[in-house]
């Protein structure tokens, strides 16, 4: 399934074009393109140039700190890490079932998080590409340009995000890096005043959510063939689904489909994720490459996130989102929709779902309940999985008898999309860049392909201990005079230049 642009045969003879930093994505990354003398692209890679060591430095810390510590991985979707770690610590404290209040407060927090993250991504980061075109002037192709040309759209984006953050603030204590979810439950519910505050604007928020889906559909259908073919490729898709096959981003089983929509596995207990998912390492990226073990590294890589979730689920439990899901699936003509830009479409259907789900929960008396915690006997191993805005998020911890963490494994949403993002830029390179003298608008198409995934590059880099490293020594004429390579095994070898 992988394309042939990962590694060129003779990189030293090719011209190197670097897109750095990638803009309008979370975190730091770059793309390198190698182009031959006939302007053909021979190699295209997405590199993640920053490094996180959370799996290592939470070792030695007490388990009850985990939901608060690990959320510092990210400032955009900390709630996802907060809740995934909380779910893992639920297992650690023997809480097999949360109280209704605890589960619903956590869901409310998660829907608020997904709403604000999706609004941020679409309106602030991606709408300039989609509203103005990929080749629009750089100084206009940004959120300021959107505010100038489409003030109503910009306003709705800002206020949708604000509403999501207010939901987070009231359930977690702070808009960013709160403390609401604790092992076995939550530390607060909502009082009447807080519920009324959120109810006040929810109808408007749902309405704007509908408007967002209509906006992306209008953009998409204006150039349907182009949008359906841009960075399009077949891939497997992985995501969480509810017990009845419904869309569920907080709890459920794992479902993977192949490119034709056939089931690879379904309703898998996520605590057994390591029986199904493996992680590969490549010597040119700090980000790992997960794959479905039964299919192998070459064919088993997959996509996660909105595109996978909306393709994978059988239905949405809320009426407006379900109506939009059906329209979306019709675009696939019986197969999963594989267009990378359809991520945006799916993302806004999810945004609409979150507004509806928040509206439902605000009418549920359980969210002001007083029974917040449920704990049993301490366990050795805890695994928490949920669907973060960017895709399936795995947190896995092991503790000693004193409650101290001695092992951690995080498979972060963006990591799951690593191979897919690389495939996307190779598709774009092949389709639009190959044979051309490269220019900013052409290179922006590479970034457009990556942005579709809403990658959070900061969260996704954590290959500590297995990190390959290459050190190249150049002389004053930029000629290589020495090169050392540390392999994933830890072995250090001098390479011939």
């Amino acid at each position, binding site marked *: 399934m992988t394309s042939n642009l990962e590694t060129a045969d003779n990189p030293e003879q090719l011209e190197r074009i670097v897109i750095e930093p990638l803009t309008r994505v979370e975190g730091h990354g770059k793309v390198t393109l190698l182009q031959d003398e006939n302007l053909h692209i021979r190699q295209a890679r997405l590199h993640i140039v920053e490094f996180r060591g959370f799996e290592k430095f939470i070792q*030695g810390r007490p388990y009850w*700190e985990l*939901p*608060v510590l690990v959320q510092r991985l990210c400032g955009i979707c900390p709630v996802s890490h907060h809740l995934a770690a909380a779910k893992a610590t639920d297992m650690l*404290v023997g809480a097999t079932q949360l109280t209704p209040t605890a589960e619903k407060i956590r869901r409310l927090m998660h829907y608020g998080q997904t709403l604000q993250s999706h609004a941020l991504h679409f309106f602030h980061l991606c709408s300039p590409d989609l509203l103005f075109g990929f080749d629009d002037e750089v100084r206009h192709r940004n959120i300021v340009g959107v505010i100038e040309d489409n003030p109503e759209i910009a306003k709705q984006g800002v206020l949708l995000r604000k509403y999501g953050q207010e939901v987070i603030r009231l359930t977690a204590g702070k808009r960013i890096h709160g403390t609401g979810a604790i*092992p076995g439950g939550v*530390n607060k519910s909502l009082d009447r005043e807080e519920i009324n505050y959120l109810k006040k604007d929810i109808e408007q928020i749902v309405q704007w959510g509908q408007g967002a889906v209509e906006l992306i559909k209008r953009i998409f259908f204006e150039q349907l063939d182009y949008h359906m073919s841009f960075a399009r490729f077949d891939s497997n898709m992985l995501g969480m689904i509810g017990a009845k096959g419904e869309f569920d981003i907080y709890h459920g089983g794992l479902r993977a489909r192949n490119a034709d929509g056939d089931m690879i596995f379904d309703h898998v207990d996520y605590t057994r994720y390591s029986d199904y998912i493996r992680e590969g390492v490549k010597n040119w990226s700090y980000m790992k490459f997960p794959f479905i073990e039964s299919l192998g590294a070459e064919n088993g890589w997959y996509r996660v996130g909105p595109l996978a979730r909306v393709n994978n689920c059988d239905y949405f439990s809320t009426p407006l989102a379900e109506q939009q899901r059906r329209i979306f699936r019709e675009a696939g003509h019986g197969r999963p929709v594989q267009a990378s830009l359809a991520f945006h479409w799916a993302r806004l259907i999810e945004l609409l779902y979150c507004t509806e789900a928040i509206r439902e929960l605000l009418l549920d008396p359980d969210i002001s309940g*007083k*029974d917040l915690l449920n704990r049993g006997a301490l366990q050795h191993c805890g695994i928490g999985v949920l669907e973060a805005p960017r895709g399936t998020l795995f947190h896995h911890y092991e503790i000693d008898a004193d409650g101290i963490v001695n092992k951690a494994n995080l498979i972060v949403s963006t990591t799951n999309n690593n191979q897919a993002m690389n495939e996307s830029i190779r598709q774009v390179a092949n389709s639009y860049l190959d044979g051309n003298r490269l220019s900013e608008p052409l290179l922006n198409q590479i970034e457009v392909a990556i942005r579709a995934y809403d990658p959070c590059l900061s969260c996704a880099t954590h290959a500590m201990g297995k990190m390959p490293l290459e050190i190249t020594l150049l002389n004053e004429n930029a000629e290589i005079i020495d090169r050392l390579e540390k392999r994933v095994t830890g072995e250090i070898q001098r390479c011939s230049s």
Partner: protein
Amino acid sequence: MSSKNTFMLDGVAIEFSEGDTIMDAALRSGSYIPHLCHNPEFRPHGSCRVCVVNINGRQVSSCTQPASAGLEVDNSSEDLVQERRNLLQMLFVEGNHVCPGCEKSGACQLQAVAYYTGMLSPQYTHFFPQRSVDASHPDTAIDFNRCILCELCVRASRDVDHKDVFSISGRGIGSHLVVNSPSGKLGDSAFAATDKAAHVCPVGAILPKHRGYEQPIGSRLYDRSPISIVGDVAAHESDDQGDTHGR
């Protein structure tokens, strides 16, 4: 009010009794002097130096300085407050005080005093010492990263619990808290969660296990009012800040 039994604290007359320190009299009158190692339940220690005040151009620790009639005590001049900020910065950089991830955040006396004095960020180089967490006791954990060597646990264990569980070992910058047990672990000591020593730590070094962040943001000790109004952590130890079941 007889001038014989008063001194002036920042221009305000403070009444005192025989045997009072400046700190005793100030606290009783409702005047706040920042402090960390002082706890009125224990003999004054004078080690943290945060409570230094100026008396006739001389700096003294108010928790050990006997009050006397006619003293002119400066508790708020900019130079003095800057000295306190410097001391607090040193305390922050000598340990590993990571407020954003600390469960004591919002209810920590070190953090509260830092806010009160305007010490918002250390300018000294962090030591980043290699310290561990001792969670060997079933009910209580010690995070040595956060210890500020106030010796309140040492004093409580020695003077109230009569167990001598804690002591300070080493000298100078190498000083550190140790546990009196064969293994050096709290779980092997005579310590019990009901001991006085379990309830006097002004920072997040000695904490009950398994509770973590049960107190929501917004209702922690110093979330609503500064330490000058709320008072010390130890004064609120009887408040139940962890039971969320009935909230």
